[in-house]
């Protein structure tokens, strides 16, 4: 699905991501996790081409991501960010259907797709005509998710999608999201700094530190066969005080 070979990135001379290889499999949820500044968001942004790798290659379904095809390839990926990134001047529907309408879908097709997505994300149908300023945090994220899924992408990328939500909403959306991921059977890459969330969603967990991947594998593997003392340290640091907002 996605293959990264030797991708790396520096910002103003500071290395954000060391040369890194990574494979993302179709039908699986991969979670990128690590402390802030570890390069997990950078990795995600490299995949969707919002930033360009200093060297190395990103390929999507065997096609190398370049400046010229980035626009086309992005339309086959969905992208959700922390506070939704919704366009405040458009209604929920306007946000979700923007790209489809730009591509010239007829209104029947648009409304059918909207209907499906509303059901999938459990978003109130009458909320479609509301503006982002009139929606709650959880609703915004559902709209953002619908927007990402509108063109039925092969890959779904989420950058801390639950980060800005209060615990109740968060738990609600968490379980919905997992159901959605399972129903869709798409490749999903999710960035979080919460080990509970990683364990909950991730078929594969990619633990990162200071721009490098420390260990990659299932949660049990990280627990039982840590590749580095940091792995255990990271897992325990979050488990010890409480499980607030964590594992459901």
């Amino acid at each position: 699905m996605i293959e990264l070979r030797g991708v790396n990135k520096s910002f103003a001379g500071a290395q954000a991501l060391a040369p890194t290889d990574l494979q993302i499999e179709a039908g699986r949820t991969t979670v990128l996790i690590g402390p802030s500044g570890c390069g997990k968001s950078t990795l995600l942004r490299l995949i969707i081409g919002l930033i360009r790798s200093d060297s190395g290659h990103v390929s999507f379904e065997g096609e190398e991501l370049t400046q010229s095809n980035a626009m086309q390839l992005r339309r086959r990926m969905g992208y959700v960010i922390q506070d939704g990134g919704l366009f405040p001047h458009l209604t929920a529907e306007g946000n979700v259907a923007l790209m489809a309408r730009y591509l010239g879908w007829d209104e029947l097709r648009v409304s059918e797709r909207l209907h499906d997505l509303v059901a999938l994300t459990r978003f109130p149908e009458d909320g479609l005509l509301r503006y982002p300023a009139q929606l709650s945090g959880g609703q915004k994220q559902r709209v953002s998710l619908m927007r990402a899924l509108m063109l039925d992408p092969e890959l779904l990328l989420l950058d801390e999608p639950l980060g800005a939500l209060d615990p109740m909403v968060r738990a609600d959306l968490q379980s919905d999201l997992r159901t959605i991921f399972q129903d869709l059977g798409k490749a999903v890459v999710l960035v979080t700094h919460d080990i509970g969330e990683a364990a909950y969603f991730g078929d594969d967990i990619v633990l990162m530190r200071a721009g490098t991947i420390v260990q990659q594998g299932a949660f049990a593997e990280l627990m039982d066969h840590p590749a580095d003392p940091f792995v255990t340290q990271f897992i325990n640091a979050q488990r010890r005080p409480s499980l607030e907002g964590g594992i459901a």
Partner: protein
Amino acid sequence: MNLFSVRLSSTIRSVLSLLFVILSSFSTTAFAQSPLKVGSKKFTESVVLGEVIVQLAQSTGTPAEHLQEMGGTRILWNALLEGEIDIYPEYTGTIAQEILSGEKVDDVESMRHALAKRDILVSAPLGFNNTYAIGMREEVAARLGIEKISDLRVHPELRFGFSNEFMDRADGWPGLRERYGLPHEDAKGLDHDLAYRALEGNSLDAMDLYSTDAEIRYYGLRVLVDDLGYFPEYKVLLLYRADLETRFSVALAALKRLEGQVPATEMVAMNARAKLDKVPSGQVAADFLRAKFNTAVDYKEKTLITRLIERTGEHMVLVGLSLLAAILLAVPLGVASARYPNLGQLVLGAVGIIQTIPALALLVLMIPLLGIGAPAAIAALFLYSLLPIVRNTHAGLRDISVQVRESAEALGLPDGARLRQIELPLAARSILAGIKTSAVINVGFATLGALIAAGGYGQPILTGIRLDDTGLILEGALPAALLALVVQGAFELVERLLVPKGLRIEPEGETR
């Protein structure tokens, strides 16, 4: 389909067509045939003489227009050389001292010769000599038997008060005193208007004045004869382009009838009627021509409504065209500046520098490039309008959050579509605020356009200042203020149309 871009383009289209209508009606009335273009300087006597020239030309069936109160000597002279005007009244002293200052012209013949080399011709003097003079109250002068300046020698007790300029100039009081051997030691320097009052109140006996000042009639003054010929001659005559002899031969022949026909007393009377009695200068000129030549001049003062409509039209053309041009350039500049920060610094710096040029200086700077009149004023207004629009467009686009910008990019929306559908609508409020600022500033600034004969509400303000007529000043100032309010209101309506609804609602808090 995007509602914003539809509304924007239809709004622009309707504004454009409206401007076109205004402009075409403006141009057909003003520029259809090429009339005789008469200029005048920024003081009453020149304006009255300008009217006399216009009406006399018109009485021969020649179309003529008056570009009144264009400014000072330099502006009029250059406009004459450039052909922006065909003829204007000028003074011999000014020609010798200012226009031909580098050349030795000590008599009329050498002046005629020097001007002819520039394809400019002069008429014979019209009569009066508007130079410095010494004036006294008629009754005092009569009682003492003083008729000429040399008579003052035997009256050392008389108290003199002179304007500060006259006191200081070598060719003013010091030279006068020396030439005539006057015994008076303690001449006072004081404000010209105060001197008239002091003379009237008997605390002064003699003062300097211009020999055709309106106040001479008002205060009943006697102008003393300069019997030693001390003061330079400032005889008025007509300065005109040589091609007038072929282009307007009939009108020119009629105008030549003015030679020697305007004595000082009549000029004083005309100045007094225009300046003190507030009779419109056109009326004063018409009455003069009727009395002098029995010319049936069909002069009608325009009604207030006609004047207002005309000036509103002129003013809106100045503001509308300059603003439209500024929008068309400044919005793209602002977009480019937001996209390319290096270019942005350059652009914002440049338009900022333009803004620091004083408005008046900017107007004057445009004259060599575009001449006198509306185009120069529009260009200056256009330059002045750039900064608020560029800066607000730039700021509006830069203020869009990274998340929103990247979300649009991540969707796979191409550059142009991102700009049209996301970035411009989100910056709409800021851009409109910039345009509104420019528009309101323009309405005020455009009144200065009258200084370079661009018309508009500035014209009555200028005339009102010249005549010290508050009513006339208000006739320009009030509509200008009103127009500014209307413009402001109009933009608030446009804002309601163009700023997307989603940006106008307040967040409702955490509803679920």
